């Protein structure tokens, strides 16, 4: 394909993606990205014969974040994720009509054998999106977009079409611990709060994913393991009625049926992130008052460390997180 044709294809593809709902679209070179990925979630462990990755994002309806209803937010998040999958299929179809191949890495599915010698999934989409120049990865390993911060969901497709890659952004959107709001409110305290003084965001951004899952996937697979363990380790006699009548059981049914609660179930770090054009109208809403409890972020810079405090979410929301032992507790009643 000539450079001119490749440039036209890229331009047309981006226009199509935007018309179909993508809020940002960027192109990644498979070869260049392959060389940068430090773990096994590489393009080459995902598929062969592809030259470019088309990365994109779409925001969750902003109105969802001016509500107090976490399941409603989760429901809206899943609808956006469904839309990401629709966009993947439409982009592949668009490329195939022009003689190219495309494949959609699953945005949500992981490799659940959790074997560190193997990839944990196909592509790690947040890094793909950062490489595509449509945003950057923040302190908590969430992808941040310029318009909507991390109040977005992301997707990508791999294609054999060769297109000029976009350049990654030159500056991080996330201010790191100098902001620190996400770390202060994170219910399971999964976000870095103690880093080397003067270090750059890229040196310390990380996430305790197991902890995060207690909030974000609080009726998900780890929570199920922990609840079963809580029953097995309970010193009380097993009482099937007590376990089955726990609200957790019906919620488990619903989380499998609708995904609400299984993924995308905690939004505390999204509420307080000040990045994005949507933040200003959002934080002024009464529903968002008090997301960052008093006294707010406290910085402690001494001994070569930059530490921030932990407060957790507002008191009225504490009880909805961490449902890891409800079934065991049901036996105590």
């Amino acid at each position, binding site marked *: 394909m000539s450079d001119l044709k490749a440039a036209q294809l890229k331009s047309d593809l981006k226009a199509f993606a935007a018309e179909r*709902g993508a809020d940002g679209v960027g192109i990644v070179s498979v070869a260049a990205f392959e060389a940068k990925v430090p773990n096994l979630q590489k393009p080459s462990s995902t598929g062969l014969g592809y030259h470019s990755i088309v990365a994109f994002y779409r925001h969750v*309806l*902003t*109105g*969802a974040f*001016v*509500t*107090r*209803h976490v*399941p*409603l*937010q989760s*429901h*809206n998040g899943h*609808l*956006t994720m*469904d*839309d990401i999958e629709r966009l993947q299929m439409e982009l592949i179809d668009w490329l195939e009509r022009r003689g190219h191949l495309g494949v959609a890495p699953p945005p949500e599915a992981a490799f659940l054998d959790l074997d560190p010698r193997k990839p944990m999934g196909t592509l790690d989409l947040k890094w793909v999106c950062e490489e595509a120049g449509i945003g950057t990865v923040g302190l908590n390993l969430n992808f941040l977009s310029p318009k909507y911060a991390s109040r977005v969901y992301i997707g990508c497709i791999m294609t054999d079409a060769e297109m000029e890659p976009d350049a990654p952004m030159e500056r991080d959107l996330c201010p790191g611990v100098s902001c620190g709001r996400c770390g202060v409110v994170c219910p399971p305290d999964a976000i870095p709060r103690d880093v080397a003084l003067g270090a750059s965001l890229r040196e310390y951004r990380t996430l305790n994913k197991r902890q995060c899952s207690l909030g974000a996937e609080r009726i998900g697979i780890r929570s199920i393991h922990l609840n079963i363990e809580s029953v097995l380790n309970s010193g009380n006699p097993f009482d*099937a*009625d007590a376990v*089955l*009548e726990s*609200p957790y*059981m*019906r*919620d488990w*049914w*619903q989380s*499998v*049926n*609708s995904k*609400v609660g299984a993924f995308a179930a905690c939004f505390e770090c999204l509420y307080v992130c000040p990045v994005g054009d949507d933040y200003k*109208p959002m934080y002024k*809403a*009464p*529903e968002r008052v008090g997301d960052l409890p008093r006294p707010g972020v406290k910085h402690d810079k001494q001994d070569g460390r930059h530490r921030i405090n932990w407060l957790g979410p507002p008191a009225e929301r504490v009880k*909805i997180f961490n449902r890891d032992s409800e079934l065991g507790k049901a036996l105590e009643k």
Partner: protein
Amino acid sequence: MPALTKDDIRAQAQACGFDLIGFASTERLDARLPAEDRPGTISTTLKTLLVLGKHIANGVSGALDRRQKQFACGQLAQVMETAGRELGYWLERNGAMAATLPALFVDFTRELSAAGNTPAGQGSRLLRAAAVESGLGTWGLNNAVLTPQYGPRVYFGGLLTNLALEHDSPLAEELCLGLEACGRCAAICPEKAIPLRAAAGADLAAVRGLDAAACLKSAHPFGPDAFVDHFRATFAARGREQQQLIDSASTRELWQGLAVLRQGAFTGCMECLQVCPVGEDATAVQASPHRRDDFPTGVTFRRAPGSIAVEPVGPQWRRHA
């Protein structure tokens, strides 16, 4: 950016595939609903609730198998979620804020069962109340919402938005004929969940109701409550009986409802919807051969001084079983 009008939004809702759209004020709903259903507990920024209706395809009335019906209505619920999302994005492209309201979600940390989602998956209590408040329909004897166009054969979804739009007014006249003049839904209900008896001449408002726990058994035959009940019975059983329960059709149906039918798990029985004579579609719906067997000699009433009762007959599939 020019302000959106109600006509703009109606036109876009129709383009997204909705048959009905109503505009309800969340403040007015807050004043009328019990605390647990008030939209003000969700948001005070989003002051208008767009109530979106889509009718059950008339052809579903010809289906014999429960799973066929559940699949069709589950698909309808899914299509409505997608269409609601598209309308929400359109509103946001035009400068508004929007959030889709889950129609079938049950907050089990606040409710002990999914009974609030009865009858028949039409939508949450909030959405049904908003449909009435915005003049899309009126309450039926069975607590379903009856619309002039589709009777109760319509599902409701919702979008909350910060747009300040004038709310629509409720309909002036009841659409439901009531127990005394019709009674078909009560007579056919397989769970006898709809009022079967009333004081002679009583107003519809004084009679209507639903035994939601009873309705649930048919409306969500393999939903979350059935899931708990089935496994409670399984754990309580012993020996051969326990083995039979584990290896039963119910165990398999529970899995299928959960993973395959999905939204359809909430859209089981729809007998009361299909026999309702209200709606422009009623003639087409009643034309199906087996629907003509619903009441071959009409509804039987038993009258006593000061009261009237409907003879329950159950659905024809159960009569012939």
